[in-house]
């Protein structure tokens, strides 16, 4: 069965059209549906956003292509500080006595599917690609966009063009020099090659012009903000043009990054070694890096305790054990949240009172505290507390939609359902989501609402809930880009892919559009605070249960770590103790 590239992406796309609410994760035995960033469905330029679903804790990162609305024009946006969670630390400064010839060994849940950033169908590949490929723009831990291969950029043609100065003296790992022509070649390949999964992400990039040896100009049809953020991820990764057509690009990458792939053992581990002529040696603090594949949660914990690895993602229920075994914890908020979504066109979810009743029947605090041991922040706003859009005056909103079964019953009676009703929710076959479903099932039964659970694997959730629109409700997790506009365009606006029932209100649409077009963050914050209130009145079809917290455990000697607001797992500049 000869598969041409086209089919691969097509199949990946259709089988796995992962809009907001689908989930994938990687915990052992769980579904590991892999999203693709490309989508054939041409719904309003939306794209399948790899979801950062989680099994009861923090899952692999997100930010495949953070396409939030146009990022603020200035180059250095305000720095949303990442709130500490009361567990571990959110960043670990570099120790001064680290072992320069050491090896940093990290265990991850999913293997790399391809080292070709333009064609890899998995939304998790970027973690494996970060050490090898530099990006044009660097998304710093606090979410800001800083120079990397592009030393500077200027907005031209009133927002429809960007001129970028390319860093000089940079060499690819195959010795060929980096110049504007190479950048153009990459961007052209990313947006023209039929097998590229980045087509929708770069849809608004019309042309790339080489102004001189180290300057390029990007001609856009709009969406300047998201474009810069996009160039901080896979779309911005620059491959050596000489390696474009090499058959083993998928297993032997050639980038400009600090480390080169020394050995790629399929499904087992990738061993990176220092790239001697790197332009920023200061971040090369270990001789080698080893990323290993360990699907099973218990296996990663065992490896940590047997100190065979330096660092790994751990689940909430493992944090205590890891600390008990002498590990240190890196924890931080992420923009990802668990959500229960309804198809607002299917009665009774078209009735706001019914939706409100269910909000009151849901005990968010108990779930966050009981199920996730506090490592999930119960709130109803759609953006993390670190985001400028977060209305701290409004706070978690647990007082507005408090856990009040009696009120829920009252509302149901008003809505004409004195003895409740029955509906079916589809849930991905991952233990974490099933736990939430089982708890909600129990909580809803208190108010007479019978929620039946149907478990399907990851890809099926979005297929049935968003495409076929046959499912009444779904439970999953949603991870937008740090920019709040991402949530609106892809989840809450009427034509958002994640809104099968197209539920919205004029006020919500107006405020969202206004916020997207503003530039100054404070001004945008004002509008988003109003938008939050408008959403409360609407009682949207999809609301967060709690905001996920990413937790990783590491051996005491490891330093130079950060939790990236974008959700990326970038270990740039990591160091290990002697």
């Amino acid at each position, binding site marked *: 069965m000869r598969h041409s590239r086209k089919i691969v992406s097509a199949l990946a796309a259709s089988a796995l059209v992962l809009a907001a609410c689908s989930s994938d994760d990687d915990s*052992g*035995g*769980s*579904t590991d549906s892999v999203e693709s960033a490309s989508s054939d469905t041409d719904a309003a330029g939306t794209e399948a956003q790899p979801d950062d679903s989680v099994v009861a804790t923090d899952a692999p990162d997100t930010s495949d292509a953070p396409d939030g609305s146009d990022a603020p024009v200035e180059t250095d946006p305000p720095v949303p500080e990442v709130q500490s969670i009361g567990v571990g630390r959110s960043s670990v400064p570099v120790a001064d006595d680290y072992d320069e010839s050491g090896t940093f060994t990290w265990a991850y849940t999913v293997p790399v599917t391809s080292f070709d950033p333009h064609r890899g169908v998995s939304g998790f590949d970027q973690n494996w690609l970060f050490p090898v490929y530099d990006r044009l723009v660097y998304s710093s831990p606090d979410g800001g966009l800083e120079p990397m291969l592009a030393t500077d950029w200027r907005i031209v043609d009133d927002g429809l063009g960007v001129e970028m100065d390319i860093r000089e003296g940079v060499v690819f790992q195959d010795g060929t020099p980096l110049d504007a022509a190479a950048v153009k070649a990459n961007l052209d390949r990313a947006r023209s090659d039929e097998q590229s999964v980045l087509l929708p992400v770069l849809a608004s990039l019309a042309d790339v012009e080489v102004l001189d040896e180290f300057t390029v100009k990007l001609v856009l049809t709009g969406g300047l903000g998201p474009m810069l953020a996009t160039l901080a991820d896979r779309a911005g990764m620059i491959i050596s043009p000489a390696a474009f057509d090499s058959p083993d690009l998928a297993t032997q990458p050639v980038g400009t990054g600090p480390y080169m792939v020394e050995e790629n053992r399929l499904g087992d581990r990738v061993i990176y070694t220092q790239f001697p002529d790197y332009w920023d040696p200061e971040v090369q603090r270990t001789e080698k890096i080893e990323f290993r594949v360990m699907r099973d*949660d*218990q296996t990663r*914990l065992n490896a940590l305790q047997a100190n065979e690895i330096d660092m790994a993602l751990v*689940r909430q*229920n*493992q944090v*205590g*054990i890891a600390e008990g075994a002498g590990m240190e914890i890196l924890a931080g908020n992420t923009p990802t949240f668990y959500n229960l979504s309804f198809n607002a066109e299917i009665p009774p979810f078209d009735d706001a009172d019914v939706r409100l009743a269910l909000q009151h029947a849901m005990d968010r605090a*108990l*779930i966050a*505290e*009981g*199920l996730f041991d506090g490592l999930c922040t119960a709130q109803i706003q759609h953006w993390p507390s670190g985001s400028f859009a977060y209305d701290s005056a409004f706070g978690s909103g647990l007082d507005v939609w408090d856990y009040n079964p009696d009120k829920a019953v009252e509302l149901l009676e008003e809505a004409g359902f004195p003895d409740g009703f029955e509906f079916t929710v589809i849930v991905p*076959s*991952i*233990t974490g989501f*099933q*736990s939430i*479903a*089982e*708890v909600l*099932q*129990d909580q809803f039964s208190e108010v007479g609402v019978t929620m039946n*659970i149907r*478990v*399907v*694997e990851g890809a*099926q959730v979005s297929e049935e809930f968003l495409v076929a629109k046959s499912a009444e409700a779904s439970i999953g997790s949603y991870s937008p880009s740090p920019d709040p506009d991402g949530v609106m365009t892809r989840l809450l606006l009427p034509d958002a892919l994640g809104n099968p029932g197209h539920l919205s209100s004029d006020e919500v649409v107006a405020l969202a559009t206004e916020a997207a077009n503003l530039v100054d963050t404070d001004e945008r914050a004002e509008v988003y605070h109003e938008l939050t209130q408008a959403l409360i009145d609407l009682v949207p079809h999809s609301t967060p249960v709690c905001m996920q917290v990413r937790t990783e455990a590491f051996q005491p000697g490891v330093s130079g770590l950060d939790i990236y607001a974008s959700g990326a797992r970038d270990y740039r500049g990591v160091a290990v103790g002697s």
Partner: protein
Amino acid sequence: MSDANNATGVSGEAQAEADTPEVVHSPGSSRLQHFVRRYRGEPLAVASTVIFLLLALIAVFAPLLAPYDPNDTDLIAKFTPPLTDGHLLGTDDLGRDAFSRLLYGSRITLVAPFIAVGVGLVLGLPAGLFAGFRGGWVDVVFSRTSDAVMALPGLILAIAFIAARGPGTTNAMIAVGMGFAPRIFRIVRGATLTVRGETYIEASRSSGASTTRLIGSHVFPNILPPLIVQASVLLGFAVLTEAGLSFLGIGVQPPQASWGVLLRRGFDHLQRASWLSWPPGLMIMILTLCFQFIGDGLRDSLGRETRRE
């Protein structure tokens, strides 16, 4: 997990059909008493039968026996250790009573193997009779197909089937049943060939007995003993396969919970609540052992009476 432990050869004529049944001629009723008398002489088998019947009763009356509703979550009281706050076996990660879930879990864990063996019988039995009686190319085709299917480990077959049809207990057990079919086919075919070779078959066939009557009166009684022995052994393997699939998260899907699922959930919290995994693990072993010993007991009491001089 490749399975049955009788010494059926792998393929080709050279196999040592250690358990080709010897034809038993004595009349029905006395044979039953004879079997019961000999079976009672097998302590392990009798004990296993009692335990199995007990488990079956537990499964049937689980709702009455379970102290709590197995789906009642109580997140505050999660991971309570055994014998505290009225929880005999403690509570799981969602605060549900582990003992009640164990009782309810017995339902799937006991039913699933019978589905698998049922499917195995439905596929293997008729094919075995047909191949045994008809012989010729039919026999060759069926035998070679059964050898080919046996080349695939049970779990791989189940997973391939699930990959295509999607997870779930029924799909899993149908796939496992398909893996059992060849083993049942070989036994039935072997027995049919032996019986067909018997002279009295020729005699009754010549006297105009229809094939179905022949099968009913002569073949069936003789393939029953080895078939029952094989079935009980396969039940044991089905329990283990179900546990394996549940461990991989593609067998029994929540909200249903089998012992395999409980064992898996126990693993997920092994270091925090180690007691969670022991009860389901032990019950799986006990059930598998029951089927194994019942199989041994049946084989010894049903099998050929070897006359010692």
